[in-house]
């Protein structure tokens, strides 16, 4: 494949001239136009491209916000209010960025849960999956630091509580916290460096996303049946099929996003963050943003574990909940990829989703509250055990004991069967 693109399309001189020197057009053609993609991808496969688009939107809105934001503890809050009131369309850019963070996590969580159901983390996509976990971690760090920047009550106290966690590490803990703070408590040095890092990390994310896409294109996308492509008839070119489908998905995605931005811009927010930070007054409830709630629940619900005090145990399990995702490809022993053909796995998967929402509920409310008469920390601890149990106990065992359903022989066979009106493996 020299400098021409697919078959019968005439290449104009300009394209040929550039492509001979830097094969941009050949590259784009190979990766985005002719690229063979499974023909049976569902709408759950839209969320990867959606995540990429939201990343671009966050970077664009963030750069323009940064033109007017001042990362200084006496000026930050006011600079945000200036953006909201005086900068042309400042309120729009700010609300897009603020709600974009929430939409980013919704999209990425759905993307991850898609992967968990269809076995997208299994060979040969282990590194693709692990790169994804790295992206998730970077997103969480970026979001955490971004929330501190407006310097409201939640910004300040959330930063205080989370940075204080590191003091739980034995011996080096307190030194690390002082190093993170740049002082004796969360203050101006902390704010300034969080701004610098918050600006930097999204570009690191872009780099990891590029690696993520390279890894993806090595073996192509997984598909709802979880079986590999057998031949040309199993795939269709990315353009126009998936370009149009992704465009449609984007338009639909923008609907709830726009609804939030224009009509309920503070739906996901905490009212307390519209109060300037006050180191002398702790808010009644310190609550992180909703996308951190399940992890917050794990942190708070963990009791003393053997010789490990609960504070340190909570920190370890909180980070452990992400760490366990890294090794997932080796924990799931089933030879079958897609949950569609794993009748027992399906129910455990559903329980994981319920567990995630339950942990979120626990993270949101006060530790002394109850649900159906049970204390929230107890529910939280049980939920934590269930989460780790799913990955460390159930998935390894299921591979041996579960009897999977019969897999179709090929993708096109399954698609043709469906087209003829015969019900194939139902979701």
């Amino acid at each position, binding site marked *: 494949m020299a400098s021409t693109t697919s078959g019968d399309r005439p290449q104009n001189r300009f394209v040929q001239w550039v492509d001979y020197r830097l094969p941009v057009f050949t590259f784009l053609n190979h990766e985005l136009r002719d690229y063979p993609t499974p*023909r049976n991808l569902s709408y759950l496969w839209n969320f990867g491209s959606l995540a990429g688009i939201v990343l671009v939107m966050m970077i664009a809105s963030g750069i323009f916000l940064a033109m007017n934001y001042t990362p200084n503890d006496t000026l930050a809050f006011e600079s945000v*209010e200036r953006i909201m*009131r005086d900068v042309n369309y400042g309120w729009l850019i700010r609300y897009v960025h603020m709600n974009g963070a929430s939409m980013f996590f919704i999209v990425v969580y759905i993307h991850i849960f898609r992967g968990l159901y269809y076995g997208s983390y299994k060979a040969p996509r282990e590194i693709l999956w692990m790169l994804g976990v790295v992206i998730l971690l970077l997103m969480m760090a970026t979001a955490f630091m971004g929330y501190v920047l407006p310097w409201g009550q939640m910004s300040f106290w959330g930063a205080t509580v989370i940075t204080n966690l590191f003091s739980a590490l034995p011996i080096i803990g307190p030194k690390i916290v002082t190093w993170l703070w740049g002082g004796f408590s969360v203050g101006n040095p902390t704010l300034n460096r969080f701004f610098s890092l918050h600006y930097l990390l999204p570009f690191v994310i872009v780099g990891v996303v590029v690696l993520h896409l390279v890894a993806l294109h090595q073996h192509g996308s997984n598909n709802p049946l979880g079986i590999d492509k057998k031949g040309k008839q199993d795939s*269709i070119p990315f353009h126009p099929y998936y370009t149009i489908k992704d465009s449609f998905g984007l338009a639909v995605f923008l*609907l709830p996003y*726009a609804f939030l931005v*224009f*009509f309920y811009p503070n739906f996901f927010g905490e009212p307390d963050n519209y*109060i300037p930070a006050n180191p002398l007054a702790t808010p009644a409830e310190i609550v992180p943003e909703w996308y951190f709630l399940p992890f917050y629940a794990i942190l708070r619900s963990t009791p003393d574990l053997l010789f490990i005090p609960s504070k340190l145990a909570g920190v370890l399990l909180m980070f452990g909940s992400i760490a366990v995702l890294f090794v997932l490809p080796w924990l799931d022993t089933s030879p079958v990829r897609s949950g569609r053909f794993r009748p027992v796995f399906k129910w455990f998967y559903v329980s994981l989703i319920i567990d995630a929402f339950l942990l979120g509920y626990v993270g949101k*409310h006060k530790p002394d509250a109850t649900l159906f008469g049970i204390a929230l920390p107890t529910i939280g601890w049980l939920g934590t055990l269930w989460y780790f149990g799913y990955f460390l106990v159930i998935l390894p065992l299921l591979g041996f004991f579960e009897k999977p359903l019969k897999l179709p022989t090929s993708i096109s066979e399954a698609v043709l069967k469906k087209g003829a009106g015969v019900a194939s493996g139902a979701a």
Partner: protein
Amino acid sequence: MIRRFVLCAALLFAAPVLVPPAFAQEAEETKLLDAHFSFDSLFGTIDIKSAQRGLQIYKEVCSACHGLYELSYRNLEQLGYTEDQVKAFAADYTVPDIKDDGSAGERPAKGSDKFVRPFPNEKAARAANNGGYPPDLALIVKARKGGANYVYSIMQGYQDPPPDVKISSTAYYNIYFPGHQIAMPPPLQDGSVTFADGTKNDLAQEAHDVATFLEWASNPELAERKQMGINVLIFLVILSGVLYVAKRRIWKDVH
């Protein structure tokens, strides 16, 4: 396939809906009053006349203790006042200035100045208010759960405490305030303010107007934002429709 698409769409739309149970109010809080503000509905905007009356209430009652710092006097032009009216309003207040001989002095406030605060700093505010700090009102509607309804309710929530409840001597009992003990004495009663346009000045009306004004103070972009929102949503619905039909057409030969 339609099933799965509906599931995905439902997930996207459900996130804002499934979540409210997690945000359910704690049992001990009293449900706030509902003022049925003009800006509550999807297309509703701020009632300018009501906001103007609210400004009057702020100036005559609230500004004694509460600042409105994030606002500048020139913002009042959004409430239907002319540039000259704004100049006159601002000129009633003075801001610090440096005299020609270099010593500290004052000058009348201009449109470009921020609203003058009643106290020079937090310590002075606390000293004058039994240690309590009257919060700045520019963002109060966004800084409290319940928003404008919270303000509307607090204004009318003062009552005698129930017989079994003891309150501090410097506090007042308010059924809508979390914890029920509020440091602010009841700021408004029937007839606290006389409206220039002759509107009935009972407590409910005053509370309604000052809450409307404060909603504007917190969300001055509300009208523009909602209008833009309607246009964007309509456009996105059309765009989604066109792209959906295009997608079905393109995929016809695959299915």
